[in-house]
Each structure stands twice: as C-alpha cells, then as structure tokens.
C-alpha cells in the first residue's frame, strides 16, 4: 500500500499487473501522482503496457543489469555529490566494515571468490569475514558450513555472527581498499553499460536512463521502490538477484522509508504465511531453524549457541524456541527433555521438493499427501514428477477438483499415448474433496506481512471438508494408533498437545483457538494441570466447551518481548505475537487512511507496517525531509513517534551507543535501524547467509544460449544443484541444438496449476487453451502465423500449443547473434475445462544452492512448426 507514495518504481522479474492486479492499484496511483514506473521483462506484458517505460531483457541476465545499475550509481555525480547517500550508507549499512586482507573478489578470480574448495565443491567462508583487531578473541559464531547440506530452504535470520563484535575493524571514511564499499565498487566495476548490453540485450543508454531515473528519484526528498516476484527468484542465482536489488536500494537510501523498499510480491494467497509458519522442511515457525543432525544441534544449548546472535532480535532465539516447544508439548516439555527440545525430530539431509521427488522416482517414498499442490502441472520436469507419483504406493490428493496430480494415472499424455499404461501404475490414489477458502475460516498473510482474517461464507458442500478438519481427524487417528507405544521415537507423538475444540455440523476445529496458540499465552503449570483434570473428568459432550473455555482463559501475550526461555510462555510463532493480544486483531476492519491503516488486520511484527522504519529518520532522529517523514525522534516526549509503529525500541534515543556487554537490542546503537541484524546495520556484503557468494555475481542460467561475458571461465553458478536422473538431460552452455531462450509465466486469467481456474468456466472462457508466444521474426522463419500449431522441444520432452505471433515479443542482440525468446504460460494441463500442454514438461530439475528454488524462468529450447509427435491431451480431447 505504501507503493502509492513512491516516486519511481522498478518492476522487474514480476508481471505485477497480471499476477498481482489488486496490489497494482497502488502502482497506478503512484503513476498518476507522477511516479515513473519502469518495467524490465523479457516480454511486453500488461504491466509494460501500463508502465511509463519498458526495457526488454534476456531472461536470466538480471544480475548483470542490476550490477550495471549499482556501478552506475556508485560512479554517478549525484550519488557522490549528495551527502545524504553517504550518511545513510555509513550509518545504516556495513559499508565501513573492513574485510580480511586475504579476501579475493570474483573479478580477480574469474568468477569465483576466495575460499573455493574445488575438490569438495564448496566455499570455506573464512576469508569473507570482517577483519578483526589483532589479538582479539576468536568469535564464537562465524560461518556455519556444517549445515550447508541440510539447510536448503528459505530463511532470513542473521545467524550467529560476529559482526556486532566491537573488535571488527571499520573505516567510516569508506576509503580503505578492503572496506565493504570499496570491495563492492571493484566487484561491479566490470559491469559497464556496454558489457551489460551484450549480456542482457538492454541498450547501454537505456541502462543509464534507468539508473538516472532511480538516482533522480532517490534522496532526502524522493524515494524509489523495487518490486519483484518469481521472475527473479526461480533462477539458479535467484538470491543473488534479490541481494543486488537490496544493495542498490541501500546505496540509494531507499530502505525503511515511505515509498521505498523492495516488494517481494508473494504468490499464493498466504504464501507469506506459509513461510512464516512454514511448510518448509528445514524451518520451524518464525524462521527458527529446524533441528538438524549436526553436532551443534545435539543439545538445546548447542542449538541456541549456533542460532542466536548477540545483537538484535535474534539474541532471544532461545525464548522463541522455548515458547514454541511449550506451545507444542505443554506439560510434556520438561527440564529432563530440555523443555521439549529433545522431542524435536532432526533433519538429516535435503528434503526439499525436487530431491524428494527424485527419491520418489527411485521408489524410496511410499506415500504422499498432496494438499493444495498440483505437481503434475506445476512441478519442474512435470513428466518426471508424474512418473514419480506413479511409483508411490499411495497418494492422497485433497483438492477442489480432480486435478492432474489425481488423474495422471489415466489422463496423462504418457498414458494416453500408450507410453505407459494405467495398469502399470500401482499407486493407489485417494481423491478427497477439500473445502475452499469461502467455506472455512482462517487467516491470510499477504505480501506486506499483513495478517487478515477471513470468515466462513457458506458451509462446504457434500463431503468437502476444510484442511484443518482433515488434519485434526488424521492426527487424532495417528495419536490413537501410537497411544500405547513405548518406543522413544514415538514419544513426540504422544507428547504433542492437541487441545482444539471442535464445533459445527462437521466438527470443525476452532481456528480462533489456533490463532490464540500462535499468538502465545502465559503458561502456568499448575493452572494448566487443573484444567487438564477438569477436562479429563468432564462428560464427553462437555469437553469441547471446556476446551474452548480454557483457551479463553489463557492470558494472551501482547508482544514478543514478553516471551521467556524458562517455559513460562507458550507461543506458536514468535513473530506473530500480538495478533491475538487484544482480541483477534487479524479480523479488525478499519480502513483508516488507506495507507498505513493500522487498524486493518495486523502486520507482524508488532503491527509494524514498514520494517526498519527507523531509517526514515536521519542518524540524529530527524526526518530526512518533510515530504518523506514517517517515524522520527520526539525530543520532548523522549520517544520515537510518527505515522507507523516504530520498528525500534520506542524510547532509545538516536544518540545512544550500543553497549558492548549487552545482548539483543541493547547492544545496538541509537542509529542502528536493522533490528533483526546482529549489528543492527544492513549488509552490502554478506559474510554469511549465502553459500555461493558474499556478493551477488552474474552467473548464466543453467541452460543458456551464451557463455558468461563477465566471467568467461565461470559461466554458471558453481553450486547449482543438478540431478543426474533419466529424462532430465541438460543443454548446457550455448548448445546450438537449442538456440532459443524459453521462459514460463502466468496469465491473469489463470492461477498456477489451474486447480482453481481451469475448472471454472468463467475463467476458462477467458483463456481457453494453452498457447506459445513468439516474435514475428521467428514466426517468419518457422513459417507459422497466429493459430498454427508449434512444438517446443527440450531434452526433457516436447510440448505443443498454438502459436500467438506478437510484436510484444522481440528477438535480442546477444553475444553477436539474434536470440529469440519464446514465452509459454505454464498453467495448462490435460484435465479440466481449459486444457493444453504443460510447459513444465520442458523444464529441467535444477536447483539454486541456498533456497533450493528451481530454474523455471530461463532455459533453452528449440521450436518447430506442427504438432508434437507424442499425442497430448488437447489432441485426444478433440
């Protein structure tokens, strides 16, 4: 919502208007207020059409472009001439930190950084650390390489580090050759406009123009924003992309200020919520790491030592953990089992989506619950994923419609073409009807971390039930099954609290109670025991009423600062603390000013609408300008005040210095806005966090039409995860057989794998069938016109669809040749009303090293006129 205040927005790697139309209203408002809207995309889309300017980029080359912008900014007169930038960067980032003398940059080492261990193919991150005063004690945090193989999912915490250490060397003049700013400058020095043009296809002068637009619209008086989505993330260097953007915005002083920031436009309605309270295998709620099988995690003490920082909010990781364990295990969290810590299972390896499906394909997985996922369409190398589903013993699909993942054994192209047969697939598939969002209550957490409650509008029809109902029923059966077990490994199952009352015609669990548990409450052992006894003794029909009564009686916590590590508090997700502090604040509905609207829903943490908003004031606590005032220090009231809840200790004066001996926020100075960070300052250089680089670096996609013009010796990410399995061959670099770039994307009219749209006739009529977008020139070469069938080919397979020949796509001049980009919306599949080839049948299994994201946005392919040789669903339907 704050985007409406921006002066310039760079939308890149997102089709904002098409995939986030409702949020886009704020962009349109900004545009009408005079903001520049710049869209950088391989295709001219509905976003480009409504932007004030558009640049066409080669898919997968964004780091080069953004690096070019960083270089342009750092070398610009404006950046070097306006004191604002230097002041912001010096105080609010780690620009002044001096790195170890033996750190070597990718520009010196041909695309790799110092610390590369070729034999083990991993980095030793020691040289990426800050230089310390001679003779100082060895830090106890530092790089945490031991967990590299098991922690492969999203997280954002600054893990234990030593940045806050007072022994770190700094140069506030930013002149030291080994200080972060100088290292950064050297790193991007080779990203000149001409080189960027050769890599991205974006003309040099356009890069300069966009850089100037950002510079013009950044500073005391003006702010620029950046918005991205999965056009940036789904790459083997996705995190590099986002961190380049972060660097750019920090350099421009656009973080934590109104109209600034980086908007990660999240996907599914509550995908933000499902990372906060994660469906990810290696995270616990609130971005605490899942317990893993490294030595450090043997004990709770070890876990805390490796996960907690000294400075910032992560200093209290133990309180978050203890409260979580209390919420989960209640009275069973005892001192003997370290407050429940020993009841936590441990992960032993990479169990993210693709490795899991590879195991499934190998026959190592017996059963699978698919609750709101359609990998037969949305999964990379969907053919492979369908084959994997066919090797399960059982598969439970809970969905609104009979989606492809439930019908693959009879309707998939492989079965229809006779390549395989229904008889040869032994998977027993259970299709269970799920209630949809309008038929149940719950909350959504959106892109701006806003938790919003939704009420049930109607009861679900027929046998449809909510997922909560299903999980409740399933859990009660599992618990009964293990009730008599005395095996230690079943102990967590027996210890888990499950005290949600059920009600209504279907016995739905009370979601409000679950929100209360997430919010957290004071846990008093004796009171809890009394309740337990009362409930135990009550008649069965009174139990649910009593359970609810107990929830109402539990004293809700108002903020996460009240969480304790001694078991006296229970909290399902520390960052959500406060959402039910004073009634269900997610359900509050006061539209307010339509900007901050503090009484509309609840934003984590603590209803802060803009993270790190201390940055909106200068180091002395004064607004940078009248126009951009947001949160500032009121000297009379001796507190931080402003439009939003300050994301900062409200009474810490700007001039305060951090106390070296303190922990948590007390360790931070009054001008250290980044409360999550160890040191309280944002990183322009990442001593840890990323496994594959301390600075974002342009690597080509795993499949690329050209070698890396910036680092010829290191075309691709050295740590990309590849899968040597049947049907998953890669094209490699500049493979002449697959000369074109292929990119996949969404259409407004459909949603992801299509479960919610391709069965709906109103939406299906708007985009009734798969199609492939190609440029006029390529169409001419192929001899096709709009409406003709074309077949796109990769080493993984073929997919055909009708061609949409359009000037919205155009070839680029890259590496001395014409490169065509082909667009294939990936929503379609073989079941439903609107059908067509699944673009994902073409995509390879390959992952990024830090977060295991696949690369679905940039690959290479060939194309020919006519239908695929393998019949596909569209044909068999006709």
């Amino acid at each position, binding site marked *: 919502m704050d985007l409406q205040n921006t002066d310039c927005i760079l939308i890149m790697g997102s089709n904002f*208007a*098409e995939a986030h*139309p*409702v949020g*886009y*209203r704020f962009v*349109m408002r900004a545009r*009408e207020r005079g903001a*520049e809207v710049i869209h950088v995309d391989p295709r*001219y889309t*509905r*976003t*480009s*059409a*409504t*932007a*004030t*300017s*558009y*640049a*066409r980029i080669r898919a997968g080359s964004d780091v080069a472009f953004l690096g070019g912008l960083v270089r342009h900014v750092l070398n610009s007169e404006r950046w070097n001439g306006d004191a604002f930038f230097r002041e912001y960067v010096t105080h609010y980032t780690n620009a002044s930190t001096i790195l170890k003398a033996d750190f070597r940059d990718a520009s010196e080492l041909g695309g790799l950084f110092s610390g590369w261990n070729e034999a083990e193919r991993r980095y030793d991150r020691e040289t990426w650390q800050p230089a310390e005063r001679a003779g100082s004690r060895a830090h106890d945090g530092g790089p945490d390489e031991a967990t590299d193989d098991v922690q492969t999912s999203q997280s954002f915490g600054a893990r234990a580090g030593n940045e806050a250490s007072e022994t770190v060397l700094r140069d506030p003049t930013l002149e030291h050759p080994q200080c972060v700013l100088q290292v950064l400058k050297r790193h991007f020095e080779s990203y000149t406009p001409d080189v960027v043009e050769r890599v991205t296809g974006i*003309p040099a*002068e*356009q890069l300069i*123009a966009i850089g100037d637009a950002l510079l013009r619209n950044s500073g005391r008086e003006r702010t620029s924003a950046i918005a991205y989505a999965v056009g940036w993330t789904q790459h083997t260097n996705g995190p590099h992309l986002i961190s380049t953007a972060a660097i750019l915005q920090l350099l421009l002083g656009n973080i934590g200020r109104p109209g600034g920031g980086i908007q990660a436009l999240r996907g599914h309605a509550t995908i933000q919520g499902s990372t906060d309270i994660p469906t990810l295998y290696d995270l616990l709620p609130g971005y605490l790491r899942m317990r893993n099988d490294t030595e450090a995690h043997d004990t709770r003490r070890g876990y805390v030592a490796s996960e907690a920082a000294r400075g910032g909010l992560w200093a209290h990781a133990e309180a978050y953990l203890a409260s979580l364990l209390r919420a989960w295990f209640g009275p069973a969290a005892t001192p003997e089992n370290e407050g429940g810590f020993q009841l936590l299972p441990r992960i032993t390896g990479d169990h993210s989506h693709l490795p899991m499906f590879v195991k499934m394909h190998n026959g190592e997985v017996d059963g699978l619950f698919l609750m709101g996922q359609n990998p037969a369409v949305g999964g990379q190398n969907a053919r492979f994923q369908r084959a994997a589903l066919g090797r399960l013993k059982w598969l439970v699909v809970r969905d609104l*419609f*009979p989606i492809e993942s439930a019908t693959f054994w009879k309707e998939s192209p492989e079965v229809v073409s006779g390549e395989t047969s229904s008889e040869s697939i032994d998977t027993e598939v259970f*299709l269970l*009807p799920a209630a949809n969002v309008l038929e149940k209550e719950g909350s959504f957490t959106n892109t701006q971390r806003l938790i919003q409650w939704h009420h049930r509008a109607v009861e679900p*029809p*027929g046998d449809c039930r909510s997922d909560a109902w299903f999980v409740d029923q399933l859990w009660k059966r599992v618990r009964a099954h293990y009730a008599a077990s005395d095996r230690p490994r079943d102990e967590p199952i027996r210890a888990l609290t499950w005290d949600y009352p059920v009600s209504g015609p279907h016995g739905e669990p009370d979601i409000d109670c679950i929100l209360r548990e997430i919010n957290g409450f004071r846990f008093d052992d004796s009171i809890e025991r009394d309740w337990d006894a009362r409930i135990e003794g009550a008649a069965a029909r009174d139990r649910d009423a009593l359970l609810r009564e107990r929830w109402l009686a539990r004293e809700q916590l108002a903020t996460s600062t009240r969480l304790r590590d001694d078991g006296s508090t229970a909290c399902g997700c520390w960052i959500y603390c406060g959402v039910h502090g004073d009634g269900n604040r997610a359900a509050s509905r006061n*539209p307010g000013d339509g900007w901050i609207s503090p009484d509309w829903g609840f934003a984590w943490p603590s209803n802060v609408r803009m993270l790190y908003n201390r940055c909106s004031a200068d180091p002395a606590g004064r607004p940078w300008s009248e126009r951009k005032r947001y949160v500032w220090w009121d000297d009379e009231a001796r507190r931080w005040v402003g439009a939003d809840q300050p994301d900062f200790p409200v009474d810490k004066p700007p001039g305060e210095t951090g106390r070296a001996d303190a922990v948590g926020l007390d360790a931070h100075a009054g001008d250290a806005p980044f409360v999550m960070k160890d040191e309280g300052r944002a990183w322009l250089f990442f001593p840890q966090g990323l496994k594959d680089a301390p600075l974002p670096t342009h690597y080509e996609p795993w499949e690329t039409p050209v070698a890396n013009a910036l680092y010829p010796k290191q075309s691709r990410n050295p740590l990309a995860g590849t899968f040597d399995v049947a049907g998953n061959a890669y094209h490699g670099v500049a493979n002449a057989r697959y000369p074109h770039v292929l990119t996949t994307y969404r*259409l407004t009219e459909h949603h992801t794998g299509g479960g919610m749209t391709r*069965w*709906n*006739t*109103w939406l*299906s*009529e*708007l*985009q*009734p*069938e798969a*199609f492939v977008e190609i*440029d*006029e*020139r390529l169409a001419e070469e192929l001899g096709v016109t*709009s*409406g003709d069938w074309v077949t796109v080919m990769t080493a993984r397979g073929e997919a055909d669809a*009708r*061609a*949409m*020949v*359009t*000037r*919205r796509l*155009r*070839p680029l*001049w890259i590496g001395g040749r*014409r490169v065509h980009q082909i667009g294939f919306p990936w929503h379609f599949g073989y079941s439903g009303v609107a059908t067509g080839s699944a673009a994902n049948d073409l995509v390879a299994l390959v992952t990024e090293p830090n977060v295991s994201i696949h690369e679905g946005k940039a690959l290479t392919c060939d194309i020919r006129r006519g239908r695929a040789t393998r019949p596909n669903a569209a044909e068999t339907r006709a």
Partner: protein
Amino acid sequence: MSEQRDVAAHAPRAGAAPLASIVDWERVGARQEAELTAGVRIEAGKRYGFFTDTTLCIGCKACEVACKQWNQLPAEEVDLVPLTYDNTRSFSATTWRHVRFVEQLDEQPDLQAIAKPWGWHGSEQWADPGSRWLMMSDVCKHCATAPCMEACPTGSIIRTEFDSVYVQQDICNGCGYCQVACPFGVIEVATETDGKAHKCTLCYDRLRDGLEPACAKSCPTDSIRFGVVDQLLEEARVRVADLRARGVTAYLYGSGGPLEDDCDTSALGGLNCFFLLIDRPEVYNLPAVPQRPSERTLRGLVAGMITALAIGVGVGFTLRRDAR
C-alpha cells in the same frame, strides 16, 4: 465432485422483474455499501452511470468475470483467438462487460543498428502509439435517447429510476429489433435459450439495495468509476485536462456534446456510461458518430406511405378500363 463445484453453469435468470429494495435506507439511516466502496449514495431519481478511464485499465478482466458471476451468466463456448488476449471478442446475451486489447506496437527496427532503444520513451510510453497496448472495458452506454429502447416494439425496455436502460424480461418478445438498433452492438437476443434480449442492467438489483455495480466494485485500479453522471463528468473533464497537459491525446467519448471535431455522440443525447479514450474511437471498436436510428423512422414511414400512395395512383391510372 466437479458437479458440486460447477460454479458457472446456470442459464440467465429469466423474468427478473424490478425488485423492491430490501432496505429502506432513509428509515434505517445507515450508510449504503456504495458509499463505502464508491463514495456515492444511490437514490432514485438521479442519473447514474460509469466513467471508464481506459488509461487506468490493466486488462485484468475482473469486471467481466464479476458481471458474469453477479448476474449468473453462463460462460460461452469460445475458441482460442491466438492473435490476442481477448478471447471474448464481443458482447453477447451472456457477456455484458467486455475488455478489449489493442496492440499498437511499431515494427522492430533493425536489430544491429539500434539507434534509439525500442520501448524507451522517457515517460508515459503507455501513451505513445508506437509502443502501447490499449485496454478498454466496454459496456452498455445507457444512452440518453437509447436506440434500443426507442426501437423496442413492446415497451419492454424502460428507463429506470436511476436513469439506466433496463430490459424487462417478462415483456420482451424476442423480436430482436433492439439488437439491430443499438449502435454499439451491445444488446443481443439469446436465440439458443430463452429467446429474449439481454444486456447490462447497470446492476439494477444492486442499485436498489445500495450496492455499487459489481463490475465497478471489482475494478482494482478504478478504471471503472460508478457514480452520478454529472459528477463523473466533472471528474472526467479534470482528468482529460490533466492528461492533455501531460501530452496525452485524451478525450471523452460519450460525454454528450460534440467535444471533438469528428467524434460526436450527441445524437444519442449523451451516454450515461462514457469513456476516456486516447485514440480514435474506431480503434476501440466504437463508432465515431453514432446515429440515432429512430430519427429515420417517422420520416421513413411518411415517405413510404406517400410513395406507396403515389405508386398506387400511378398504377391506378393504368387500371382504367380500356377506352375503347
């Protein structure tokens, strides 16, 4: 299961006659929902309509779907139109909102000799006909002198208390005359189903209950603005002036007066639903100077009668008995 979820498979509601409002707003003294969502209070006797600012449209088609959903209009059997994102193509008895997409992109200059990068226009490239993709959500214009209404032989088409043009389903006889009278191809007879004429009702049933029309409410960018026509016109004129100051060739289509030399909707006495356009009307499939067919009726009937009589007299002469 798919039966349970067949959300869109209903025939148009036949015979939906004007409904009595459920709520007496005056008595309740409450705020209408429309006041919250559109900032306008809906009262009988005022002229309501839409101001559709096409420069704000992002082509999301939410309006099209909202209309179908609210009015329970069945989807159509459409084929992919592989030229465009507009698979709807035109209005029909079951499509009362329609979003058009006009690609106006210059041919690509020679790649190797890019002098000026394509698609870069400094500012407002969306307003430059060389690099734009126009989107426009079209709807029944609720014309002041509505040709459909004037043509209707049964009096089925009436003007409501909100000054909208409304087809009373129980009176329509399916003659289809309105369909050929409408200068905008809006209204259509559902020949396959109930054989009656259908078009946008300006959400008459919603207005009666103090709700903003479904399409306008769903529009994320407020490209469709619902309100009292005179107020909308004022807003629109300000907007046009603003855009022109920015160098955009904006003008109003359907504002009632001859605003531009060669675009004039005054024959229809003004359109309650009018549009801000930035290219010629034909580009959006709209006639530049829509005519009022009924202007030809009386004249034609009299001319026809007179000539018929003249012919009769002429022929009558030849009928005289042979003067033998």
